[in-house]
């Protein structure tokens, strides 16, 4: 390689790394920098505060409900779309993608319009003392909405890539449909499934805009972690805000690390996931 080419290569690498450092790493580093600005004791205190604890529990609870529901949906949708031919398939896929393109503010608003006191079911819900909006069910609904396509979007291309031959063979050998799914499909897609669940979970725990609209912000009851970050920030307590934020940032790191591990294990996944995850993150 000529000296000129060598020089331009270094220049390009340098520019790219500088760019990533400034735009990506700096904001990330500042979260941890600010979180530990007043020492470890303050950091621990911020996380063990009762309001912070209930926010952490609520966030885990919401994710524990939303993620499995989207998991079941994702498997069903992928089975229908990647294993069968039918008319209107691409329209269906675009509709599954729709939540990606909806502003989170709108995602929260739609449930207010449906379940709010003046919404479609408002008076019926009030009569029967069922709380959806400004309670856990509303937060779960908004979270399901914003993470709706993640698992489906992960599985569909993976299953299309793998083809249906194995399943059809198993079927012709006399296996039942359920057996085919359990013994053939599931082992084939398990890493993709796990990866979809990881991303779905990361986003479910981190959602701010949509949840903010339906939460009601009742301290200790309906504040999730991202909302608690905002509240602490507004309570002249930026250190505590960044402390809770650092937990969420840590979750992001763990998600990335887990993905890297999954890809190293399953090279096939890399092809299927790289471009697909782009579509997954289209959600604003």
């Amino acid at each position, binding site marked *: 390689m000529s000296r000129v080419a060598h020089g331009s290569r270094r220049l390009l690498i340098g520019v790219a790394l500088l760019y990533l450092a*400034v735009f990506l*790493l700096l*904001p990330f580093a500042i979260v941890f920098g600010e979180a530990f600005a007043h020492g470890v004791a303050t950091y621990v205190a911020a996380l063990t505060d009762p309001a912070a604890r209930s926010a952490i529990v609520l966030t885990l609870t919401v994710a524990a409900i939303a993620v499995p529901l989207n998991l079941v949906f994702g498997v069903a949708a992928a089975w229908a779309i990647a294993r069968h031919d039918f008319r209107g398939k691409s329209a269906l896929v675009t509709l599954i993608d729709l939540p990606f393109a909806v502003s989170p503010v709108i995602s929260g608003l*739609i449930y207010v319009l*449906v379940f709010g006191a003046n*919404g479609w079911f408002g008076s019926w819900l009030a009569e029967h003392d069922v709380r959806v909006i400004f309670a856990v069910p509303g937060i779960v609904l908004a979270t399901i909405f914003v993470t709706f396509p993640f698992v489906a979007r992960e599985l569909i291309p993976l299953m299309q*890539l793998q083809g249906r031959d194995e399943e059809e063979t198993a079927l012709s050998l006399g296996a039942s449909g359920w057996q085919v799914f359990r013994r053939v499909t599931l082992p084939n897609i398990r890493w993709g499934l796990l990866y979809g669940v990881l991303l779905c979970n990361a986003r479910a725990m*981190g959602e701010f805009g949509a949840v903010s609209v339906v939460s009601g912000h009742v301290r200790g009851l309906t504040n999730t972690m991202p909302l608690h970050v905002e509240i602490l920030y507004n309570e002249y307590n930026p250190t505590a805000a960044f402390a809770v934020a650092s937990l969420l940032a840590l979750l992001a790191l763990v998600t990335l690390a887990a993905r890297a591990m999954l890809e190293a294990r399953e090279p096939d996944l890399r092809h299927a996931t790289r471009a697909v995850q782009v*579509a997954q993150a*289209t959600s604003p």
Partner: protein
Amino acid sequence: MAAVLPVATFPARTPRRVLPGFGLSLGYTILYLSLIVLIPLVAIFTKTAELGWDRFVHVISSPRVVAALALSFGTAGVAALFNAFAGLLVAWVLTRYDFPARRLVDALVDLPFALPTAVAGIALTAVYAPNGPLGRLLGALGITVVYTPLGIVAALVFIGLPFVVRMVQPVLEELDREVEEAARTLGAGPRQVFARIVLPAVWPALLTGFALAFARGIGEYGSVIFIAGNMPMRSEIAPLLIVTKLEQYEYASATAIAVVMLVISFVLLLAINALQAWSQRRLSGTAR
């Protein structure tokens, strides 16, 4: 390449349903989709319909709404354009060169996907504020980032960075390097190789990445709200205007803006899918 492209239209063949569970899985898919997404979304349209056509036109053509939509689309466009160039560079460096910690850098590109937007918002504000590390530097040059449209662009650059990289990267990996080298031996300069061989190949992916970053930028709320100035006519984004209208109890006006954003986003989504189908057709001709 089929793996890269989410869903393709299938070659016409007689539908044969060998595998069971079609009715159940499709039925469940449609039911869940309708309950969670479609039916609630209808509420946006029925609420807007309360306005009537004339009021709807009046609301969405008011200068403040037009300014907010222009700002949202404008800043999203600028940020996506910036990311198209920077993303291509990063993808190029990641696929063509080997350097220490390359895999780590590769993994870090996804950071904005996984970082909650509110966390990104307060972190970015802290970085770019006049007393922040980058804000102080830029302030010395007379550039203010926070609370200006520039701040919105900075946030959207952060949010949108991975899109272009992740779209372009697989294409660059697949691109036959022998073709590039052959062109070199035939006397083509590096610039010619890039313009004649590399760029045409990555062009569809680049465009798709741009469109995805753009679509995401339009609706972004959490990270922008902390860093935008929120000044009417100047630095007020469309999602914030929706929230503002709600707080004035003007639900129908709020949903009217939402409808406009929704329709535009949906058109973008269709365009992205069409782009992907197009690039798939092109690539199936070139790669392999």
